[in-house]
């Protein structure tokens, strides 16, 4: 049962990732990416990471993708990838190279993850995450707020109209 669920969600994730790469229209690509992020959130649920599944839906599929769709709308897409590709041969070379990369990564996974029995108790859930976040990882957590503030100031500086 869990295997079947995993296979269905994994197939959905791979298909939507391929849709993002293969579809010419950028807005279709954004919607495919939303599907992909949602299926990865479902996989987080099957791994017992409920907090991350919620954050994935809210932050990634919500906030970040809205920003992407907004940028696509502003920038009038669809005109830059029509017409003849001057470097078509080089770009098509990426397909065998990417397949080779996937093969290598899969071989590494096969070689590296042996049939070790997993640890018995898995402290998942919000409580374990919160406990770690506010004790051992408190300093990085606070530094994250500085990073977000710096990003906000940088975006304001970049996006202002030059007079």
């Amino acid at each position: 049962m869990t295997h079947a669920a995993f296979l269905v969600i994994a197939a959905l994730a791979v298909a939507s990732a391929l849709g993002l790469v293969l579809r010419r229209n950028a807005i279709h690509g954004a919607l495919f990416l939303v599907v992909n992020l949602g299926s990865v959130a479902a996989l987080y649920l099957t791994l017992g990471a409920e907090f991350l599944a919620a954050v994935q839906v809210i932050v990634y599929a919500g906030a970040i993708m809205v920003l992407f769709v907004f940028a696509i709308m502003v920038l009038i897409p669809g005109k830059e990838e029509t017409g003849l590709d001057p470097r078509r041969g080089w770009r098509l070379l990426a397909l065998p190279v990417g397949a080779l990369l996937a093969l290598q990564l899969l071989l590494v996974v096969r070689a590296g993850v042996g049939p070790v029995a997993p640890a018995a108790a898995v402290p998942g859930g919000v409580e374990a995450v919160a406990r770690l976040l506010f004790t051992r990882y408190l300093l990085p957590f606070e530094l994250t707020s500085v990073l977000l503030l710096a990003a906000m100031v940088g975006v304001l500086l970049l996006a202002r109209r030059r007079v």
Partner: protein
Amino acid sequence: MVAESWYVALSAVLFSIGVVGVVVRRNPLVMFMSIELMLNAANLAFVAFGRRAGNADGQIAVFFVMAVAAAEVAVGLAIIVTVFRLRRRLSVDDLSLMRW
């Protein structure tokens, strides 16, 4: 319970698709979305390894990756919008120089 190696294998496949997407596409927005795909694949591997290790440290790493990704998307999209405003075109082949 599905073994962690399946999750890591799926993560490898998604990461490779993201790499191909960055290379084959000409629209910087789609390239950017492919980068998000790669980050997401790495996150999946983090969570899977965290469950294998039996602690929640992997989930903490994913949390920080998400925060950095949010900042990165904001700055990157601002850069793309600025470049588009200056060039009126949006193909990465036109952007071979880092100055104008």
